[in-house]
């Protein structure tokens, strides 16, 4: 029998953990549903390998894969090995890899098949028995969203949702619904079975070091906080531009579009980090409480307001990176009358004491001039100019740009005197590049997030009310766009986006060049 710890034992701290860079994590069995899928092969399994390589996994760790495809344990191990060798960010150490996979098991079956969960229950109990301890259970749902309620329901029906003496956690991949009602339905289905603190909804953007650095930048520097408000900030632009098209993802993308794919989740997350008040502590709920407050302060548009605050477009044929490329409607498997947007731009306002009146522009698109994800904060101009403007580009308002990719860093534009006998000014950049200031390599977002889920730290995961608040803002826009299904505006592939995007800008603001 595996020993179940007493309450007194559970309260006792581990004195050996103090000062260690890697904190101990309770022994864990990780079950991946959809273990043979693309996400698992490209991201999850390589992330697990990298954690094993670094010695960061719990001292006892077991992997179980589950999917519909018929496969033996050995075949699953072989497939996992091949995926890890192909996608791992570091060269694979064969000994570590075989240690990771030697005990891996595979459970075949469709996700609504009760026998899958009976087998899982049996396998996890056997592992407890063999080890003489009770493992924590983490169920990772790397499947199509339609299976999320099915799997969670089956987990509940088979009593796998709680386990005496250990924690049970469920990780859910995005998307959490495709609209507010679906998100609510999914949250209800999940929370019928699990407690909220057992649920870890992944938005992998939050696992990126540079995204977390937005918080460090704001709350670890006395320099910026005094100006981080409506008195000094003129407007904010958040951009997530991709230079590639949809590739082979037409099936997914045409149902989703830019707003659901990027704006509703990743970009609103960036917005909340940028606008939130300092949390009392960096505990999961304190941070998420502050983020939710920001989302609640954003007024969802009325149907008649959508046209003036949101715009959408599709890429047309054009030239990208010197090559002629097709337009969205010519891409394979895209319906010829599709009105799915490959570009979306919005103007939002956070109606609270700090941000009232500051337009926050969001834009995301595919097949744009280059790949860049950034937050640009434009400050108000200085109140009085003592300098002559002729013969120079003049004094420009300061801009603080936090770049997530490709060159992670922070850039601040400041006015400086042009060398010469006259007092002429031009903007110059003060740049901080991540790569220049730290010796370590950033871990993949999934490595961080898998570890956090195993550790039970939900700070970088989205809470139920947070997801619903995000959809509350997006739903009216989606509904307004759905009500006008005709052809939508176009922009040439490889360009900076559609001209129509200018229509949502206020006060002579301009889009930053992509």
């Amino acid at each position: 029998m595996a020993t179940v710890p007493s309450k007194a034992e559970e309260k006792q701290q581990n004195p050996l953990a103090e000062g260690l860079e890697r904190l101990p994590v309770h022994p864990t069995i990780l079950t991946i549903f959809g273990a043979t899928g693309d996400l698992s092969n490209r991201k999850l399994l390589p992330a697990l390998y990298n954690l094993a390589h670094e010695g960061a996994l719990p001292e006892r760790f077991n992997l179980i894969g589950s999917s519909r495809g018929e496969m033996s344990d050995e075949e699953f191990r072989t497939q996992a090995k091949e995926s890890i060798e192909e996608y791992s960010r570091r060269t694979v150490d064969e000994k570590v890899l075989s240690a990771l996979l030697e005990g891996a098991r595979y459970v075949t079956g469709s996700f609504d098949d009760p026998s899958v969960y009976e087998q899982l229950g049996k396998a996890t109990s056997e592992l407890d028995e063999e080890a003489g301890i009770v493992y924590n259970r983490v169920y990772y749902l790397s499947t199509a969203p339609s299976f999320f309620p099915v799997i969670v329901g089956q987990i509940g029906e088979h009593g796998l949702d709680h386990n005496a003496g250990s924690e049970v956690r469920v990780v859910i991949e995005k998307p959490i619904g495709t609209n507010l009602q679906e998100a609510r339905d999914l949250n209800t289905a999940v929370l019928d079975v699990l407690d909220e603190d057992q649920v870890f909804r992944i938005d992998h953007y939050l696992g990126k070091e540079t995204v977390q650095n937005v918080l460090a930048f704001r709350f670890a520097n006395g320099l910026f906080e005094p100006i981080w408000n409506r008195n000094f900030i003129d407007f904010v632009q958040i951009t997530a531009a991709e230079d590639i098209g949809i590739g082979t993802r037409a099936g997914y993308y045409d149902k989703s579009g830019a707003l659901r794919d990027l704006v509703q989740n990743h970009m609103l997350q960036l917005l909340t980090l940028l606008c939130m008040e300092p949390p009392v502590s960096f505990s999961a709920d304190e941070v998420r409480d502050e983020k939710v407050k920001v989302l609640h302060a954003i007024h969802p548009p009325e149907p008649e307001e959508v046209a003036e605050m949101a715009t959408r477009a599709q890429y047309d044929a054009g030239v990208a990176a010197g090559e002629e490329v097709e337009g969205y409607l010519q891409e394979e498997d895209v319906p010829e009358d599709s009105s799915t947007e490959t570009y979306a731009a919005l103007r939002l306002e956070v109606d609270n004491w700090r941000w009232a009146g500051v337009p926050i522009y969001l834009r995301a698109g595919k097949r744009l001039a280059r790949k860049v994800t950034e937050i640009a904060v434009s400050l108000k101009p200085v109140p009085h100019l003592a300098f002559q403007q002729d013969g120079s580009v003049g004094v420009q308002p300061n801009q603080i740009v936090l770049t997530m990719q490709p060159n992670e860093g922070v850039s601040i534009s400041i006015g400086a005197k042009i060398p010469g006998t006259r007092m002429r000014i031009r903007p110059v950049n003060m740049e901080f590049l991540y790569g220049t200031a730290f010796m370590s390599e950033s871990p993949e977002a999934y490595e961080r997030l898998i570890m956090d889920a195993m550790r039970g730290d939900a700070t970088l995961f989205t809470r139920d009310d947070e997801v619903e608040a995000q959809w509350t803002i997006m739903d009216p826009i989606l509904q307004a766009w759905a009500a006008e299904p005709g052809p939508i505006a176009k922009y040439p592939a490889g360009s900076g986006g559609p001209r129509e995007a200018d229509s949502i800008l206020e006060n002579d603001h301009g889009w930053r060049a992509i």
Partner: protein
Amino acid sequence: MEMSGSVWAGQDTTPAKIEAAVRDLLRERHARSEAYVPARVLNLVVVADREWRGEIQNRLDQVGRFHASRTILCCVEERRETIDAWATTEGQRATGPTDVSVLHEQVVLDLGPRHLDHLETIVGPLVVTDLPTLVWSPHGHPEAVDALLDLAQIVLIDSVHEPDPDGAVRRAMQLGERTYIVDLAWLRSTPWRERVAFAFEPTQWRGELGKISSVTVKHRPDSRAAGLLFLGWLAKRLDWEPGSMLDQNGALHGSAHARRQDVTLRLEPDETMSAPGLAGVAIDTASGLSISLDRGSGGLKARRRLPDGRESEWTVMGASRGEAGILGEGIRQALLRDRTYRPALSAARAMLG
């Protein structure tokens, strides 16, 4: 990856000329392409014997991504009176329009023993101001380290490479009074400390920490200091009062006074170990629990015997870092602060009597 670099050399030169040359190299690179930007993380000052320059250079080349942003390698040559210098800037070749190439700078100085007593006046102008400075002197030269203590915030040592553990611990304590120490011997024990902590993480085993009755640490014969630091760490974390250990046939034996009982401590050399550091750890408790960790394939081989006699065995996964990895980790640790090293060091000192 393709590298790109620029070089400057000067004979019978001065720190001011070298510093100007490094600035010129950076300016030239930046003028050629704005893609080249200097890294600004850490200054590393290495003091080494001239005849071992190649070996030290190799070790520094192998640390991978844990490069200091500016390395100043001072090569000490007997009877040399003047200073010769080579300065280089190197980074990955930038190819794409949005590429950024991070440049690292290296200055190699050939100098003589007479320069060491006031080495800070030579090195001072060459370090990047406001960055932390780490000093590493793998071939002794304590006078050079002492001269640099006001300039450097961190000293990298390897207690394993000192001739005797007593002297190693004493020197580390002495340096620790004046600056922050990163000890490679301590870093070699990190995976062991982590994994022992992990082994007692399941809540049902935590209570066993108070019942530990014996600890045996096996180490490469020259790595006794690493074993002492490991035992010192355990003693401090668990509030033991360690007594002096005695040498018996090459192994150290002793005990520590814990709240409930005395703990038997053993440090045993393992002749089969090829890499410096620890070879195994075995911990027994008064209630009959036994945990051992030994080097194995793909990580550490862990064994647990429960009080009822049941046994289990598994692999705690982790790749070997190798000596290059240890040095790289030492350089990285210069940016962090580990508050558990000095207490472990003082406990190790108590064990040596």
